């Protein structure tokens, strides 16, 4: 018995060694598909969890992500951040109707689905009907659009519920259009349900919603030049295959897109070994250095968020404005940025809740000039603390008149390399200045929960977001992690959003929500300035820095990558440059 066991083991070992010398595998190609494989990565799920439904969060949005979904299911247009303009994809024309009651898009008439049928207004109507029942698009959940109307075979009107909105414009132009044919009779039933005037909280509505989200399309009809079936999903990578019927089929240079599974740690060796040519994962600075040392180029583009130091305003002394301002003065944000993500992070300049790159676009110059930039000034910090009754005690710690030192626990997510680094450095700097801060690392899910529950003293989470609108960028911790954005009596930071300011009673929450309403840019700028100045003065949270994406780009495998000064690199990953450059054939296999 033992002998057989040994033999078996020996057999396996020998076999594995033989396996080591395996040769390259044959690759099947379609007749006139371009040659070459684009080697990317995306953390998709495996069947049976993997499915092709575009209206369920665990479907296409999880499995292709916002980047690769756009090359399978095209969007009407593609946004260029540098020039604030939309480039045509599926649509040829778009804009507000003359009376500004609706937004229209007009589709290209030569566009086909991968099965050869034309892409028409009916597909748009179907997509929005399904999204409306499932409340899946933000134009519906945000209450911007009340109706979607077919004008002719290629034109659709989106009727505004209230005033016309630029936020809704982006939502419409940026959402992928799905093929009605993939969803059987569901689109028609969704339209019937909407036409019947049923309430969205009615039972029939909920039943149809469940039916839509549980629907599993058998095939993915693509408007882009690539598509895949569930058979193309393996545990190590999934493969998107070229298909001939797309408007971009003739311009793309790759026959297939191979997306490796795995996240940061698992993909690092694959990037180093050349199995992955481009990765959208987030790598810590030390790994970036290793890529650079291996001759892999690093592309830098905005990620549009960064770590912020969050205060619990129920914890003394963080409810005191001067204390928060002092902390803003005493932290060296350049050092903090460098430790957060090496060269892939920049210190916050304007300290107002808007991203520094957006401030000149979204605000008037006179307001910008009024912003306090909280440049590193420890004397000023000391002065502010002294002004509210703190003094350094004999141990060199800041204490109030009763001798209580400024002490707190700083909770941060253990797994997030960048946020935890930002927090640890902020703690070091505050302790050096004379506070008594204890670091507590917790699993990120718990950190988030603790912040919502108000079960923290200091913490770290993200501020700002990848939107060109001030209302979305301001939507930071003070709404998401504050009582105004929470339910079930959770208090979060518990920063009061309604208060007296310069003699006026203001509601900051409402001001932020309304900041991007309407079409008048001048008014929006003025609103943004007002909000920015309030946040800048009160410092309800401290925006420590802004993180940049540093994506490896292997030029031995890929040609045509953007130059460092290419304006398209100002796009964040929600409008990733590879979407445009893959489709229009700028990127090609290197020889």
């Amino acid at each position, binding site marked *: 018995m033992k002998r057989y066991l040994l033999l078996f083991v020996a057999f396996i070992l020998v076999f594995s060694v033989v396996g080591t010398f395996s040769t390259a595998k044959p690759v099947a190609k379609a007749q006139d598909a371009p040659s070459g494989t684009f080697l990317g990565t995306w953390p998709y799920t495996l069947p049976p969890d993997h499915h092709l439904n575009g209206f369920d969060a665990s479907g296409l949005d999880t499995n292709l992500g916002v980047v690769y979904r756009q090359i399978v299911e095209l969007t009407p247009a593609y946004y260029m951040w540098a020039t604030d303009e939309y480039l045509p994809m599926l649509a040829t024309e778009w804009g507000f109707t003359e009376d500004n009651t609706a937004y229209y898009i007009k589709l290209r008439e030569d566009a086909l689905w991968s099965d050869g049928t034309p892409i028409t207004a009916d597909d748009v109507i179907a997509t929005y009907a399904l999204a409306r029942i499932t409340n899946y698009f933000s134009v519906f959940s945000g209450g911007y659009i009340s109706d979607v109307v077919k004008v002719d075979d290629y034109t659709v009107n989106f009727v505004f519920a209230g005033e016309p909105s630029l936020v809704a414009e982006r939502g419409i132009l940026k959402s992928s259009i799905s093929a009605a044919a993939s969803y059987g009779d569901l689109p028609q039933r969704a339209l019937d349900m909407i036409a019947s005037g049923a309430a969205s909280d009615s039972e029939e509505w909920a039943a149809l919603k469940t039916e839509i989200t549980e629907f599993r399309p058998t095939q993915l009809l693509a408007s882009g030049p690539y598509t895949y079936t569930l058979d193309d999903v393996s545990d190590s990578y999934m493969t998107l295959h070229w298909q001939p019927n797309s408007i971009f089929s003739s311009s793309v240079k790759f026959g297939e897109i191979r997306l490796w599974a795995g996240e940061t740690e698992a993909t*690092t*060796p694959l990037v*180093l070994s050349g199995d992955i040519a481009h990765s959208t994962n987030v*790598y*810590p*600075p*030390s*790994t*970036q*250095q*290793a890529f*650079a*040392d291996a001759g892999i180029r690093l592309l830098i583009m905005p990620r549009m968020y960064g770590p912020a130091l969050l205060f619990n305003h129920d914890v003394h002394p963080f409810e005191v404005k001067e204390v928060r301002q002092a902390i803003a003065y005493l932290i060296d944000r350049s*050092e903090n940025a*460098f*430790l957060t993500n*090496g*060269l892939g992070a920049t210190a916050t300049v304007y300290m107002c809740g808007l991203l520094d790159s957006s401030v000149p676009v979204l605000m008037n110059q006179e307001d910008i000039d009024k912003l306090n930039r909280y440049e590193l000034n420890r004397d000023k910090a000391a002065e502010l603390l002294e002004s509210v009754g703190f003094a350094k005690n004999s141990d060199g710690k800041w204490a109030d008149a009763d001798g209580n030192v400024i002490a707190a*626990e700083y*909770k941060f997510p*253990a*797994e997030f*390399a960048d946020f*935890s*680094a930002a927090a*640890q*450095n902020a703690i*070091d700097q505050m302790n*050096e200045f004379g506070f008594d801060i*204890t*670091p*507590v*690392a*917790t*699993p990120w899910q*718990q950190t988030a*929960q*603790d912040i919502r529950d108000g079960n923290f003293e200091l913490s770290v989470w993200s501020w700002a977001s990848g939107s060109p609108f001030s209302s979305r960028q301001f939507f930071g911790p003070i709404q998401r992690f504050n009582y105004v954005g929470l339910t079930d009596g959770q208090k979060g930071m518990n920063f009061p959003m309604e208060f007296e300011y310069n003699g006026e009673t203001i509601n900051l929450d409402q001001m932020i929500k309304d900041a991007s309403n309407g079409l008048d840019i001048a008014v929006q700028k003025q609103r943004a300035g007002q909000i920015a100045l309030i946040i800048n003065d009160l410092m309800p949270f401290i925006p420590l820095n802004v993180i940049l994406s540093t994506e490896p780009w292997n030029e031995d495998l890929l040609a045509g990558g953007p130059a460092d000064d290419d304006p398209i690199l100002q796009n964040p990953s929600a409008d990733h440059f590879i979407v445009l450059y893959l489709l229009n054939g700028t990127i090609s296999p290197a020889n």
Partner: protein
Amino acid sequence: MGFLIAVATIPGLIIGILCGLVPLGIGLRYQQLSWGIVGLVLCALAGFSFSLIGGFILLVLTTAVVISYAFVDREDPFTSRASIEAVNFEESQLEFLMRQMAALGRTIRQSVRALIRNKAGFLGFLGILFFVGISVFGPLFVEYDGDTHVERLQPGARTLFQKPSSEFILGLDWKGRDIFSHMVHGGQNLIITSIEAGLIATLVAVVVGAMAAMIGGVVDQILSAIANFILTIPQFPLLLVLASILSFSNRFYLALLFAALSWPALMRAVRAQVLSLRERDYVQAAVALDLGLPHIIIREVLPNLMSYIVVNMIFSIRSAMYYIVGLVFLGLVPLEEPDWGVMIYVGRQQGAIFNSDGASMILSPVIAIALFQLSLILFTRSLEEVFNPRLRSGL
């Protein structure tokens, strides 16, 4: 803090010297000056490193050795070859104490001899001494580098990590701090907590396992059921839930937590072993003589399991080292630096493993832990000889 404190302190040194005066005095009294001086030095060192506990233990041990030398020629009434009538069984309490001490001293001398005779074991012993020495005395010579040093950034580098160099012999970590200073300062807490954790876990496992096997019946069933339950319950969610309601600032509780969750595996193995030993003639004989459970377990059963137990204790220590760090990152304890385990975790998170500049941050503590364990395992060779006299003759 747990039951071990290892920091070199001046009061500790004074305590140690005071303790050392006892063996020295007794050595002077019985003309064993050289052994008295050895006792003084050892007591002083132990007191210096482990304060009162170390000083006191060494006080007892060295005094015993000194007495054993002094007492060796005295007539021991119990081993005397004189006729039973000629021997005076009356002895004062002092004499009784002296005789016991002398016996202890002889055992110690034998053990030390066994320890030195096995070269591998002695090497292990030296290795352990080395790590203890570094942790205890290192901080006196190497200053802890806890501040971020952005000014150490090399031109063109993207991180503060640096390869080992003549200035920083183990390189710099992600905050530009000297890894060598972290190695010197970061072992102490981890080693002590892990040893505590490993000891407690092993102790519980052995006691419970032996009891379950020897008593049998309902007791066995209940104890086994508890062990099975703990073995079966998934620990990760348990710890997550614990972490969300508890926070320990005292590392000794971590040791206890580790022990509470990790004893069952060893307990089952010990129980199985003892079940087998229980049927042996000498154990059956002891049972028949009604020598009492503690006697049977300690005298008859355990010596036969010693090497197995000791090796498993070392495994427990290793597991505890990584386990405790895991608990830090579940939020059960504040993240304390310097600490070898924290270095490994943070290093991995900061991508140190993929970068030759940063690899030292992970590899230094990993190698130190591996070597520390190698020392422990080598040391078991000597322990085996000490505890299992049958092996001394070799096979």
